[in-house]
């Protein structure tokens, strides 16, 4: 936290998840149509134009303004991110998610993420799922990056503890008579 603090103060902040770029940090091995394997990192690039926001303006907003903003924005129309994978060259630090790869690495657009609906967590289909970064579709597998395995092990433990306490996180029953 302390080491990231100077970066956090100077980094550009946006006012919406829809304007944010998301990076995998972890590398994965993707197989192309010819069967060749490539170590990649993926990024989701926002279709919406980022509008920077100052620290002072940020401080004036509510603690959950990003969540409210994305809900309203998606209600007004689907939001999109382009999925881009950067392909490592031999010798790139594929095993260390804290090290960036050079900017000139080949980037390939592989798809578009379209968000059409935002559902609140307590009743949504995502609340009881463990988002395990090692559960991958065919054509993708873990690389020599050791972190997805560590995340998988830790998230499984966390999931076991969380589901054991599910009764303390009730769903919002909207149609129940009081």
């Amino acid at each position, binding site marked *: 936290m302390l080491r990231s603090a100077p970066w956090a103060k100077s980094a550009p902040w946006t006012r919406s998840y829809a304007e944010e770029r998301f990076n995998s940090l972890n590398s994965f091995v993707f197989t192309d149509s010819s069967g060749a394997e490539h170590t990649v990192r993926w990024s989701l690039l926002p279709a919406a134009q980022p509008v920077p926001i100052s620290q002072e303006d940020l401080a004036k907003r509510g603690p959950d303004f990003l969540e409210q903003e994305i809900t309203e924005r998606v209600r007004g129309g689907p939001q999109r991110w382009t999925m881009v994978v950067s392909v490592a060259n031999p010798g790139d630090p594929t095993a260390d998610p804290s090290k960036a790869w050079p900017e000139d690495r080949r980037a390939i657009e592989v798809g578009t993420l379209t968000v059409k609906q935002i559902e609140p967590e307590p009743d949504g289909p995502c609340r009881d799922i*463990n988002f395990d970064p090692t559960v991958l579709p065919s054509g993708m597998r*873990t690389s020599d990056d050791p972190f*997805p395995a*560590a995340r998988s*092990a830790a998230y499984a*433990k966390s999931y076991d503890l969380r*589901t*054991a306490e*599910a009764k303390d996180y009730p769903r919002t029953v909207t149609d129940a008579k009081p």
Partner: protein
Amino acid sequence: MIGVRQRFTPLQRLLHWLMAVCILAMLFIGVGMVSTVMPKYLTLVSIHKPLGMTILVLALIRLAVRLRYGAPSLPADLPEPMKLAAQLSHYALYILMIGMPLLGWGMLSAAAYPVVLFGGVYLPAILPQSDSLHTLLWNAHFYFAFVFFALVLLHVAAALFHALVRRDGVFEAMASVSTHDEVALAE
């Protein structure tokens, strides 16, 4: 005339020793995989699931073979409490050999995890996704693993007791490597 086998059939002995290796490996893989966050975690999990299903299939075959061929009778001079312990512990072992993989499969199903076998074959979910079921089955899988471990130790201790102390042929009924069936004719 009824043939009374002094040994288990070669198929039963093969299944026993094959499963002994699988189950011992399974217990240690299980303990190992919940104790690490290193990349070997993924390797261990990817062995644990298919090996569990292998044990389930082998246990069902073994149960069918046992029902078909039975088992050599215990020595007549074995004290009744020991006979009872032998019978009950074998019921428990069969229940665990079949029950543990089912608990694991059910637990993964209740968490909506994919169950991937060797070669990328996916097994269907056997239960709907459910927090409470997942917790129940996870706890059962966890604690019964220790029960299983204790039973295996008891089983090994009893086998050695028969082999080294009583020398009554019970150990040889399963440990013999001879492939031809020796049948003693009942009087």
